[in-house]
């Protein structure tokens, strides 16, 4: 290593030193520690006691609530994420049709996504109230029966999905940016060849939007696996004493993990849950990445 190279190395490392310290202190150390805790019984008061794989076997084979939490989370992710993509892409396509008043429409669709999550959750609890909520009033006006949005275990997750859809604005902005990058010539060429609007969307727009769809799919899944705040507030608001909502229908994975760690002080068990979540997230991401080759279309058009 020549003197100048060594000098550059030292300067570079000095510049990134805040990250190095943070990486070691806030990522590497906690990861190793939680990995160790995940094989122990640890109630914070006494030191951790080695218990081998017990936390993991409990999680998968003994703990009915954990299974319920995994089911709830997968159910939510499997519906909320694809549905969110359909709604966001659909509205972005409408907004991309060279309409007047774009800025106004875009603002209306974007604003819900920046409402602080605690405020938006409380607002939705009010809207979804069974007896006095706005949504049931609307249903009533068209002759439909009341729905126990937040009290009927069958409807709590659809309610949460509805709330999530309302905040799709961030994804919309990403799609709109992607749509603007699609060269106008492609549409003109297709029109000259006699393609209809629908054909243009299916054959040109959607394929060229797949990188953004792919990005939102991955981040959406990771986010859905970690849903916490809305569930935490909704669960406590349903009138039942338990935090998991009616019949634990809102007991999501991160919420159950939080309860184990900070309400039951089962730090070892919660650490095992965290690692399982981490591995499941990685696995899902890898599977989606693997499929990307077959459906994500990267550029190549000038």
């Amino acid at each position, binding site marked *: 290593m020549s003197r100048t190279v060594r000098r550059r190395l030292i300067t570079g*490392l000095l510049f990134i030193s*805040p990250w190095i310290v943070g990486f070691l202190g806030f990522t590497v150390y906690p990861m190793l520690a939680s990995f160790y805790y995940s094989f122990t019984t640890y109630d*914070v008061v006494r030191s951790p006691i080695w218990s081998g794989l017990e936390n993991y076997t409990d999680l998968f084979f003994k703990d009915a609530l954990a299974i319920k939490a995994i089911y709830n989370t997968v159910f939510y992710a499997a519906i909320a994420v694809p549905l969110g993509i359909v709604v966001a892409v659909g509205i972005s396509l409408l907004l991309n049709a060279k309409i007047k008043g774009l800025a106004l*429409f875009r603002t*209306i669709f974007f604003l819900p996504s920046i409402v602080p999550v605690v405020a938006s959750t409380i607002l939705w609890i*009010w809207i979804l109230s069974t007896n006095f909520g706005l949504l049931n009033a609307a249903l009533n006006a068209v002759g439909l029966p009341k729905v126990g949005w937040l009290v009927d275990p069958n409807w709590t997750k659809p309610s949460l999905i509805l709330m999530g859809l309302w905040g799709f604005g961030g994804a919309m902005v990403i799609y709109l940016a992607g749509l603007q990058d699609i060269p106008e010539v492609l549409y003109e060429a297709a029109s000259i060849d006699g393609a209809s609007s629908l054909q243009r969307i299916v054959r040109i727009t959607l394929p060229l939007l797949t990188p953004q769809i792919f990005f939102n799919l991955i981040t959406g899944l990771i986010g859905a696996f970690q849903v916490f705040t809305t569930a935490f507030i909704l669960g406590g608001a349903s009138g039942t004493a338990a935090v998991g909502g009616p019949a634990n229908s809102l007991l999501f994975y991160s919420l159950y993990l939080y309860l184990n760690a900070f309400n039951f002080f089962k730090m070892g068990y919660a650490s095992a849950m965290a690692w399982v979540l981490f591995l499941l997230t990685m696995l899902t991401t890898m599977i989606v990445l693997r499929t990307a080759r077959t459906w994500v279309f990267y550029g190549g058009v000038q």
Partner: protein
Amino acid sequence: MSDVRSAVISRLRSRLLGKHAPSYFLERGVIYALLIVFSAIFAIPLLWMVSTSLKPRSLLFVFPPVWIPQPMLWRNYYDALTFFPLVPYLANTLYIAGFNVVGHVLSASLVAYGFSRIDWPGRDKVFILVLSTMMLPGVVTMIPLYLFWRRVHMVGSSAPLHGFGPLMLPALFGGAFNIFLIRQFFMSIPEELCDAARIDGCSELRIYARIMLPLARPALATVALFTFLGSWNDFMGPLIYLTSRDQYTLSLGLRQFQGQYSTQWNLLMAASTVVTFPIIVLFFFTQKTFIQGVALTGIKG
């Protein structure tokens, strides 16, 4: 001549694209109708929030719902704020958010400089490591970090500012996403600028502070804005780390208020409006940074 030509071409083009066909108008009509219906649906919840916040109790449970209460009960805001200690919660939130904004902008830009302007061996491999940490779910590190902050007596500390440590100190070490965002921007600034400064004997730290930081203002603004929003909205962090009520942030305080006044919807909506309003104002003043920042997060992904 060329004017005529381009006019002919555009006429031809619009004919080919069917801009005068009846189906074209039908299509436009459907698009506008859909947009108006959907945007109305999306606007309703926030309008309902403000509407409810101005109602007397007697109008809350009326069917069909009243949208514009007569008279508007502005007193609800006063009442809500006597039960909901807005000023201390706001002060706590701004204190945490302010520290995070300054800390993240400084630390992330320093690190981003090291990843973009200094060519050291292994740099790009280490940068991949930075990116990969973005994938890590927060709950994996949550428990050991909590235990760590407890051990250094920063959880439940009665000293007023001490207890904020776990929510502020991590800002000094640059977040991966912020580093990424600023680095991408630094990469687009011509290297020649720095080389010229180096030839003039400028130190790297000076180049960073005097050349790169001023030029990267848009990226820094994006990081500042998102960091601010993140702190303002954060719920899980304050929930875990803040134990005494006088340390609560707005989000945590609002949730606590909801637990106590769960049926006083007019007061709850007034408090929710108060917590939401600054963010909406912020959005209108920083729209460009906002939209560009969000778009930026997606494009490079």
